[in-house]
């Protein structure tokens, strides 16, 4: 909107070139995942700096599903990410509803204490969490990977903000109809908050899928790795044992769900970051 058409004729093509360059690392990964391992062992720049997959093969992806632990890691990531997302949505929306719409004793104090938790970073609690979960024999389980994120208050903060914005006459109308609080919450408040819940769901899923430090600490059996940790474990020796093409195929597998999710729900991702500062 700013600027004249003449400037646009220079600016937009320039930005387009820059955007393509920006995507080169991703395109290169994709291209290598579609080239034979034997070729990549010799050269990574076969056709046009290796950005065009010629010669072309699907072999890396086929091997990925028949050999090695990548499918298992993918499944682990799905279980952890979906489980975490569902639980974060449930806990955050219920607590957000309570803080925004129920006048209970001690509410302001409790809410202030919850907000105070926003300043505690994951790195300040991961050592004590490690010892706690070791005492409980929780390591190398799904709940160990999910539980710590349930305590992060950002979801409660977002949902409280959202519920505060819902006009009170909607609530009053429901009360006149004799709805109790649970009905009010499930039948009226939750359907109204689908956009906010979608935003929170995508940000939580993104966090869960890409989290590295905590799964690295907690899951030390190879079978319990998430795809993010698993990919890290095979990248140090990729050239020798696994084959570069296959490692790149694992990288593509690890990225695909996030890229698809982002492209489909871009609007919600954008709103979530603009609201929550991307935490």
């Amino acid at each position: 909107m700013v600027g004249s058409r003449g400037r646009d004729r220079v600016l937009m093509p320039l930005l387009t070139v820059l955007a393509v360059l920006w995507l080169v690392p991703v395109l290169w990964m994709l291209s290598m995942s579609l080239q034979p391992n034997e070729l990549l062992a010799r050269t990574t720049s076969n056709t046009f700096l290796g950005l065009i997959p010629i010669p072309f093969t699907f072999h890396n992806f086929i091997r990925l599903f028949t050999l090695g632990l990548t499918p298992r890691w993918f499944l682990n990531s799905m279980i952890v990410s979906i489980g975490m997302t569902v639980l974060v949505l449930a806990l955050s929306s219920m607590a957000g509803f309570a803080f925004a719409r129920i006048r209970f004793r001690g509410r302001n104090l409790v809410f202030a204490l919850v907000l105070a938790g926003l300043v505690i970073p994951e790195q300040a609690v991961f050592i004590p969490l490690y010892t706690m979960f070791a005492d409980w024999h929780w390591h190398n389980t799904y709940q160990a990977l999910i539980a710590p994120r349930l305590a992060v208050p950002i979801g409660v903060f977002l949902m409280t903000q959202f519920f505060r914005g819902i006009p009170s006459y909607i609530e009053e109308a429901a009360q006149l109809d004799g709805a109790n609080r649970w009905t009010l919450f499930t039948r009226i408040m939750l359907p109204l908050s689908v956009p906010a819940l979608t935003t929170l769901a995508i940000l939580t899923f993104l966090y869960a899928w890409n989290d590295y430090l905590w799964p690295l600490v907690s899951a030390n059996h190879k079978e319990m790795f998430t795809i993010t940790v698993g990919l890290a474990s095979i990248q140090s020796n990729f050239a020798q044992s696994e084959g570069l093409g296959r490692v790149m195929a694992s990288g593509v597998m690890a990225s695909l769900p996030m890229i698809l999710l982002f492209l489909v729900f871009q609007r919600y991702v954008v709103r979530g970051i603009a609201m929550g500062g991307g935490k």
Partner: protein
Amino acid sequence: MDTTGPTPDRAVRPGGARGRSGGLRDTLEGYAFAGPFLVAYGLFLIYPFFKGIWISLHDWNLLAVAFNPAAKHFVGLKNYVHMVWGQHLVWGVDHLVWARAIGLAAVVAALALASRGRLPWRTAVPLAVVGVLLFGVALGIHPASDGRWYDRRFWHIVWNTLLFVLLTVPSVTVIALGLAIALNRQSRHAAALRTAFFLSQVLSVTVVTLIWQLMFSPKQGILANLFRTLGLQPIEWITNPQLAMPAIVITTVWWSIGFALIIFLAGLQEIPAELYEAARIDGAGGWRIVRNITLPALSRTTTLVVVLQIILQFQVFGQSHLITRGGPDDSTQVLVRYIYQTAFQNSRLGYASALSVFLFIFMLGFSLLQARLQGSD
């Protein structure tokens, strides 16, 4: 953030939500709804936070305590002393004189801004006090010629982490700001470009490091291949102590402009169109509009982006852990990786917890700043 409670609700109370406040039924239902979260919050965040402080007061070996819970020893503040202090420390005016001069100049600048009303005193005064203590006093402390720090690596690693933040945050901010201003228009073309620049942000740190390790490789990297085609010598990024840090900074900037871009675009949407109209009627051109209207209107957004980025980048771990393994010669060793290694490779949980508390205190200041910035909207 509004910590005083929900005002819109209060305004509608008379006819509204369930009449009286704090009735027994409301209280029971309130805690029933908030309960599941509060349990998780107490168990997985608050309790571990205090337990971490408790662990930091012990000589606590991970393996020894795992076999015998009594194998930990209370040592008071010894871990903290070991972390920050040393033998035969002296104070000198001339130690790190340039960095301290720049820091004190920033303090003066902040006070000057405050006296002109551009910065609230309640922000400027605490900043100035911290600044004077830090640059005027603390940075003058150093070991004498026959002295040494107890932990020879700690301050070096803190400096690496700060250097990483100092290099990453301005780059991310400037690039994202420029792209946001250029791409703030309603066309399919601009939307596609926004998507392209954001895309790398949704990748995990292990995918990012997988790609960039290879990008920087002197044998297989794209740059190296390009250089070789041109008959030039490929650059050894990762094994060169001078270039290893720039390498992980480049990787990080590529990875993390997306969030900043979106926050800037949201900020641009809030600038009223009339401002641009007025400027255009006055005959202002593109660059003058950007400088006189867009940038001043975005000053709060810019501060928010900078603070968020500092918090985020201070926690850097994966890039250093996976691309350079902290090396060469500790040149890319950062605080979180040091904590991780101290705890899980050297089994020194007590000392690692003290390092965590240091990280927390450092980030607390920026978190509070973020809360204030977002709360006053």
